[in-house]
């Protein structure tokens, strides 16, 4: 399941698994927040978790999610959760704008920070 959260031990090990067909595998959810998770009351949580078909980290790596959540150049926190037959994996990512975003440029750059080791 770590493969689906980009949490494999090595890129090579992860890449070697791409031929394994896995369309619409697992129940994958993601949640996006503008504040670090736990900083504000759950009552003020900004977004509801939504389901994704597979590979939930695509909510920020692929075009639609990148545009929707990262075009403003602000900090964003992503929580990914996948479950399958009683197993669960949760990962948290901080998409941290780099200094380059401080100017007026339309080009944005983010650093992907894995906040915690994935919880199973």
């Amino acid at each position, binding site marked *: 399941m770590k493969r689906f959260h980009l949490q494999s031990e090595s890129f090579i090990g992860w890449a070697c698994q791409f*031929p394994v067909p896995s369309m619409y595998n697992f129940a994958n959810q993601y949640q996006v927040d503008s504040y670090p998770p736990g900083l504000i009351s759950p009552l003020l949580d900004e977004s509801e978790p*939504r389901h994704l078909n597979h590979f939930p980290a695509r909510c920020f790596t692929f075009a639609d999610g990148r545009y929707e959540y990262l075009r403003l150049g602000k900090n964003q926190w992503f929580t990914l959760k996948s479950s399958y037959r009683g197993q669960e994996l949760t990962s948290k990512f901080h998409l941290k704008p780099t200094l380059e975003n401080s100017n007026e440029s339309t080009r944005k750059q*983010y650093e992907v920070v894995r906040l915690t080791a994935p919880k199973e």
Partner: protein
Amino acid sequence: MNLRQKTISTETQNPEVSRDTKPLGSDVNRADARILLAHRLVQAGILISILWKLKFFLHATAVYRSIELIDPFFPSFWRSNSVLHISFVGVVAAAILNLITTSSSIRKTCNLASITGLSILCTHQASYNDATFVTAWWCAIWSWWFGSRMNRDTPDQLLSKAAFLSRLIISMILLGGAVGKWTNEYWSGEVLYDIYFVDRDYWVFNFLRDQFSTEELKRIAMWHSRNVVMMETAAGLFLWTLSDRMAATAGILFLTSIAVFSNLLLFSVVGCLIALALVGYIPRDEP
């Protein structure tokens, strides 16, 4: 022994020599045409799949140019936009060249180029595990295998093996999808309800939202989801056991229904698999 029997028996002894010395209009020529047709069908499928995604790909690459992600998990080569573009264009060029060439060496080179390009696309930060590129990759593997057997097997042997391999690949891809859905969240319809029924702008779901209440929609989503799980599982387990034409027909109908009833963009995923299934229709002299 008539001419047809002679040509077939000569070819069985040494297909490579017989293919080079065939008289025009003979059965061997017809067999070659069928083999070339099978290869070109799958190449056309790969091309259609990739080009079906072109509009989205152009939009996506514009986003990737303006919003860059520095993720140490991906080596810089696998984050580069240039690599993404070159791989995409390379796969398109290889498929087009494969459609027009009759040269064995060009065909082999194109098949290897196609596998390389698709392997990069399947592991690139901006397109990893994209189902379009994964299904196209399996079709490229089939093409590479088929191209490498063209001068070794007799036409009937090759077409028979090719049809079997094509339905085996389709079965495996469907089973891979089914296994991941053998979980409560799919059986209850929760996942597909959220992904498709809540707000997906597509005629099927727009129509259902107009006609039914939320509770009814959830029940429809549950039965739809159960149907998907069972159909995919059955197809994955048994499609490969059917005869060539039965498997081709069942595969084409099933794959087409996935795209028509979910999202026309999914033709980029199933297009090349439909072409692969069509190989089962190519006639053989021997049953």
